[in-house]
């Protein structure tokens, strides 16, 4: 499967056992999708293989069985714990497609999940996550319990899109200044937010056309195939050399059709999917933007509250009220909370700045690869087509001389 190899690189790849034992490595892969269950209850289970020499892990190799909702659990935990970091995106839940479970869909999902894990494993912060270790190592029953336990806290794990939508509306509210103006006055950050929002629109459009292009390849393949058949039948009416020419043309047409279908698949995997991935990444950033806005708001609110409390405390102290002690405690707690909120916010800002750099670099690489694969595929396709048709020319030439 010609999926994007480059993504799993960075910190050691799947052929880890040969790297020097002293170098720490963590390699993960998602393989072997298997359909389980029946009807509406049906789901896909995947095998997740972890190879590592890190001491925190239970051994050099571990294989566990996971399903999509387990990945969602991991994603949500990371999102909660690592604010400021762009958590790698998951493929969409897509209830409808799941129901159909086409081979293509299953493979695309597997790839996306593999990418998800690999990105986590390559991220210097995220890879240290305990939740990651849990995900990679506990057996299925434990995982199931954990997953069920978490369902109540977040919105339905399946409803990532809903979360994003909520976040999006919240963020756009914030950006558009609909809420009370508790916003950072950071022009660079404003620029970034604007960029991210606009980018999503552009990417969504590109993805739409990419998907359509896949369809067009399939459609062109089909009509070439039908045309070939019709031409063959027409040739049968003619007979002798001309009839043969028709028949060969029809055959070539069918050949080209097959080639087109293959290319359609490649396009889907190596071009459309990466663009979709890009879109998801942008959406993940938007979620982080919302989190940052929350953190900022919290910080501001706390700062406000503290001011009030200070004033109140001073008042109380002046009047030598017996509520002073209480008020002092409250004040101290709030001060701590405020400092914590400030710390959190500032960490987020720093992290985000790092992340955005990483993000841009990674995306430049990803898109570069996607363009390359696209161009390579199209060139190959076109050359194949040219060769196929060209081979007919001498025969046609012979026809006219006879």
């Amino acid at each position, binding site marked *: 499967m010609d999926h994007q190899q480059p993504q799993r690189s960075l910190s050691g790849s799947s052929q880890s056992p040969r790297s020097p034992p002293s170098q720490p490595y963590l390699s993960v892969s998602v393989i072997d999708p298997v359909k389980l269950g029946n009807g509406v209850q049906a789901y896909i289970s995947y095998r997740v293989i972890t190879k590592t020499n890190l001491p925190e892990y239970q051994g050099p190799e571990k294989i566990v069985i996971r399903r999509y909702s387990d990945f969602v659990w991991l994603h949500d935990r990371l999102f909660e714990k690592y604010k400021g970091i762009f958590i790698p995106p998951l493929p969409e839940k897509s209830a409808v497609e799941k129901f159909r479970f086409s081979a293509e869909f299953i493979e695309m999902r597997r790839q996306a999940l593999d990418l998800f894990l690999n990105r986590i494993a390559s991220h210097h912060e995220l890879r240290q996550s305990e939740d990651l270790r849990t995900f990679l190592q506990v057996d299925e029953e434990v995982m199931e319990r954990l997953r069920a336990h978490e369902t109540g806290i977040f919105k339905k794990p399946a409803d990532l899109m809903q979360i994003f939508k909520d976040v999006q509306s919240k963020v756009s509210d914030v950006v558009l200044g609909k809420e009370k103006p508790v916003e950072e006055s950071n022009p660079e950050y404003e620029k970034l937010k604007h960029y991210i929002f606009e980018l999503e629109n552009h990417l969504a459009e590109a993805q739409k056309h990419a998907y359509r292009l896949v369809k067009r390849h399939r459609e*062109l393949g089909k009509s070439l195939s039908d045309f070939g058949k019709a031409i063959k*039948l027409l040739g049968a009416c003619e007979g002798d050399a001309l009839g043969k020419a*028709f028949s060969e043309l029809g055959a070539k047409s069918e050949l080209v059709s097959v080639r087109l279908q293959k290319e359609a698949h490649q396009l889907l995997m190596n071009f459309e999917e990466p663009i979709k991935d890009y879109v998801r990444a942008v959406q993940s950033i938007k979620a982080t933007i919302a989190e940052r806005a929350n953190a900022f708001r919290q910080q501001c609110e706390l700062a406000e509250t503290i001011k009030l409390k200070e004033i109140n405390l001073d008042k109380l102290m002046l009047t030598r009220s017996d509520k002073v002690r209480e008020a002092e405690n409250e004040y101290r707690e709030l001060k701590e909370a405020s400092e914590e909120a400030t710390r959190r916010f500032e960490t987020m800002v720093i992290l985000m700045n790092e992340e955005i750099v990483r993000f841009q670099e990674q995306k430049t690489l990803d898109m570069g690869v996607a363009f390359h694969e696209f161009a390579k595929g199209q060139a190959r396709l076109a050359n194949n087509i040219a060769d196929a048709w060209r081979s007919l020319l001498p025969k046609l030439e012979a026809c006219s001389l006879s």
Partner: protein
Amino acid sequence: MMGAENQGFEEAHLYASKEEMESLVLDEPPSPNANGNGNANSKSFSNYRSAMSSLPDSHHPLSASASTSASTSALAIPADSDPLLAPPPYPEELHSPTSHDNSSYIEPPSYADVIFSPFDGEDINGLESPSRTSDITPASFSRSSSSTGEYIRITVSNPQKEQETSNSIVPGGNTYVTYLITTRTNIPEFEATEFSVRRRFRDVVTLSDRLAESYRGFFVPPRPDKNVVESQVMQKQEFVEQRRVALEKYLMRLSEHPMILKSDEFKVFLQVQGKLPLPTSTDVASRMLDGAVKLPKQLLGETVVAPHEVVQPAKGGRDLLRLFKELKQSVVNDWSGSKPPLVEEDKEFLERKDRVHDLEQQLSNSSQQAESLVKAQQDMGETMGELGLAFIKLTKFENEEAVFNSQRARAVDMKNFATAAVKASRFYRELNLHMVKHLDTLHEYLGLMLAVHSAFSDRSSALLTVQTLLTELSSLQSRSEKLEAASSKIFGGDKTRIRKMEELKETLRVTEDAKNVAIREYERIKENNRTELERLDKERHADFLNMLKGFVVNQVGYAEKIANVWGKVAEETSGYVKESI
């Protein structure tokens, strides 16, 4: 012309679902053979002429030269100019295989004229006539003989509204549309090289009807539909334009038929100024009137079909009685179980008829699939272009909002990618344009099937006439014998009876004459059918081969162009793959 009420198939295809098809087909020559001065290819035109020469008495002057050019000319090209024999530098590859001169028809420079706006369907118009040389022979069957260098080009243009001056039933006058029909030719029979007339559609109908009468048994191309619509619609620009295109195609097709080209009717239509001096087909009402007047005479008297009339099928109205008789005969043929007095015996003909039927079916099927293919390719080009545009917008955006260098680097590659996509999209569109022309051959031949059908039905109706006359003859004869037998019994004879016998004998003679004429006509039509079938086979063979070649060469050429474009991008972005490993 028999094809009176039937919509020409090719017309149906022209105006089928997609307006893109329509805009693509327009004025353009359906064949790849769009350059040259009519010496492009001599398919089997000369063959045809030598075949036709067997009908008139004298040997056609061209047949001598025809035999030499015919055998080698079909699609052979002098080796030195045949692009296909040499390995392909691709622009030449796109050369029409049948053109003799080396001006590459599909070379990129010629598209400088194309006004390319990627995302509306209208850009095709830029490819219309203005950029084309005027001495193109646009018809797909362009078969001006290379040996004679004959060519003819007919254009229909400049539709104008005119007022009906004569007394019409509707007071206030009718308006109708006339078209300017311009002919350029070097054919000597026309006695001029360039001339124009104004004609209205009614004149075309007249021409078509007269040709149908004169050329029974020939594959006479069917004329465009009458389209009985209200005058408001008549004047709508779109309708007029459609009709103009259809007329042009029709006239060019007529000119491709070697007999019709030189026919009086055709020449008169193209050249005589003012009112068209061909007898008009009277409308149904007056014909009925006419026939009703004649009927009593026919019923009461012993009117027979005059010999000169048998050369035409019985027309409604005028020859009611004859129609009835022939109808009766055909019923007898079908239902009586007894063999009609003369049957279609020519086995070869019947075989050929079946084959024609098969051909028609497969043509129809192929033509449909060809349309789907064109659409699919069109869509491919469109979507590719849209993808390119989306990335161009994204590039612009990245450049405007770039904060990091990585973004700028990405923007460069994105732009190259997007540009390539737009180029590829253009190539798909061009590929399609040409493919439409090649595959149009299928549509053309499908349309011709109508002409074939009517030629076959000319034959059957002529046969029916003969059969009817034979039946009549035999019944007259038996009456005559009875009368003789009766009168021989009475010596001296009854004056009335003698008169009757003489009248009967006269009728017999006339009917015998008519029968002979009818048989001659039938034989003539049979022969026309035969030669036309041969012509059809030969020309079709050549045209189809042409079509296949053109199609393939086209595909190869554009595939190479597209491969080129993407190959460059793949190279330029190959760094990313190495980087990411």
